[in-house]
């Protein structure tokens, strides 16, 4: 399956945030979206998710424009993994994951035994079974992020949009999330991921899109898009890219 964004202009009425942007995500790959603060990343992915109205252009899944789709139909094709947050009520982890089933229920529907089984399976997939009964508000930030990924899996959509999934996490939890992103790719999900860290793109991205000032500067393989020269220019800082072992690149800022 293919998520195709063509000549998409995003923003608010009277205030264009991005120019016409085109890219596509295939199932089984991860497209990483990088760009400085204010480059339009957030506006772009919110528009792709249908949370903001598009100003121009099309978003198509398997060749069908999603503009006229109901919220539920869109949610069955495209799931959103927001940054880990705290809801106002102490839901259990299982309750949180179960909300994913809404897209498969009617307006007056209630989750069935089968929906509960799908939620349980998603929790197991992410290795969270021991936390299923824990309060979502009391687990760690890293665990919360994994729960939100489990929820996206329970939504049974082929494409996932992850908003800075590693921000606010400690180093160990970042690695856990990165491993799960790799795992989701190999399970055949199509991922659109935003991040501030070139290293994470080197580790997980199939392709990288670099965004700056509302324009798509380049899109392609991580090695070609994330060059020293281009990152220096985009972020306005001095940095070096090295290879710690064959095929494993890292990006280090130079601050002296």
């Amino acid at each position, binding site marked *: 399956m293919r998520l195709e964004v063509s000549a998409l202009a995003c923003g608010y009425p009277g205030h264009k945030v991005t120019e016409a942007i085109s890219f596509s995500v295939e199932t089984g790959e991860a497209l990483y979206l990088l760009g400085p603060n204010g480059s339009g990343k957030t506006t772009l992915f*919110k528009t792709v*998710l*249908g*949370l903001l109205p598009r100003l121009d252009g099309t978003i198509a899944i398997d060749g069908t424009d999603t503009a006229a789709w*109901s*919220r*539920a*139909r*869109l*949610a*069955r094709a*495209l*799931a*959103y993994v*927001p940054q880990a947050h705290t*809801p*106002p*009520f*102490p*839901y*259990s982890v*299982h*309750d*949180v994951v*179960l*909300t*994913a089933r*809404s*897209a*498969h*229920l009617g*307006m*007056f*529907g*209630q*989750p069935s035994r089968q929906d509960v089984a799908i939620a349980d399976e998603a929790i197991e997939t992410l290795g969270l079974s021991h936390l299923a*009964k824990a*309060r979502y*508000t*009391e687990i760690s930030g890293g665990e919360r992020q994994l729960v939100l990924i489990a929820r996206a899996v329970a*939504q049974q959509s082929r494409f996932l949009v992850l908003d800075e999934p590693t921000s606010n996490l400690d180093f160990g939890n970042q690695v856990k999330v990165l491993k799960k992103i790799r795992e989701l790719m190999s399970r055949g999900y199509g991922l659109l991921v935003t991040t501030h860290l070139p290293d994470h793109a080197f580790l997980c991205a199939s392709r990288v899109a670099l965004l700056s000032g509302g324009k798509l500067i380049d899109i392609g393989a991580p090695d070609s898009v994330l060059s020293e020269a281009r990152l220096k220019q985009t972020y306005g800082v001095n940095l070096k890219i090295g290879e710690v072992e064959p095929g494993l690149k890292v990006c280090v800022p130079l601050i002296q």
Partner: protein
Amino acid sequence: MRSDNPIHATAMLVGLTVVFLIVAWWSLGLGRYEVPLSTWWKLIVAPDEAGVAGQILMQVRLPRIAAGILIGAGLSAAGAAYQGIFRNPMVSPDILGASAGAGFGAAAAILYSLSIVWIEALSFTFGLLAVGLTCLAAARLKRVGDPILTLVLVGILIGAVFTALVSLAKYAADPYSKLPAITLWLMGSLSAINPKDLGFAVLPMLIGLVPLHLLRWNLNVLAFGEEEARALGAETARLRWIIIFCATLLTAASVAIAGMVGWVGLVIPHLARMLVGPDYRVLLPASILIGASYLLLTDDLARSIMANEIPLGIITALIGAPFFLYLMMRSNRGWA
């Protein structure tokens, strides 16, 4: 003490139903006039022979108990729904100006010596008008900031306007006849309920309660916020308006027949959340059952503590506010 498994949740709901039935039965028998159990039998087999006791049951006690159940259930369901929609456990049916608007409608009707039907009709009208104004103003202020905070703040402002209008109605009222009537009514009471009033309130209560109950799963989804709920496939705008309409209708219907009965819509959903957890599939029916039992008990107190009846609104505030403080102190895990 919370339901993490469905068996526990079912057991809780069954338990709460039993408590509710006991409270309702006990409340029917309570009162200055002793009504023997045999009266019920007489009422069923030979209604004409039931006499004064039968009449008291049918004309006074039953309508009063039924109204107490409806108001307790309605205010609690409305409170639980508002809290989910606004993602704020500190929210109650009084926000959005519903109670204040309904209170003004009733005060105005009393001021112009209109009949009870008009008191109720104007309560409805102004309750819904206040919410309409709140939502309209909030929609125009959409770009100012957090839409939910904006809505709550505008609700407080609109509420303040209607509270001022109530004061104006009191000021203009005849201090010997109308003023005491308005003041007493605003204190909240079930003492004047008759079968006709009850009939007028049943329909709006059902129109409010039934959709809320059917949509209760969606309240879980909406509690995660506008964007997430939409990304999860919920038609948030439509759901939000239906739920606000139903909750407001419940509030206005309560105010219309019983005046200002405060704190129920804030305290009961909290108590319910402590017992059964935040899942609205269980929380909403639990709130309804606890709310109905609680209002019956407070009304029992109102009519039995002193020789003269104490207005119900005073009791619910005297019990509700300190109890809420207690709930806040013992909940160290956030608002639950």
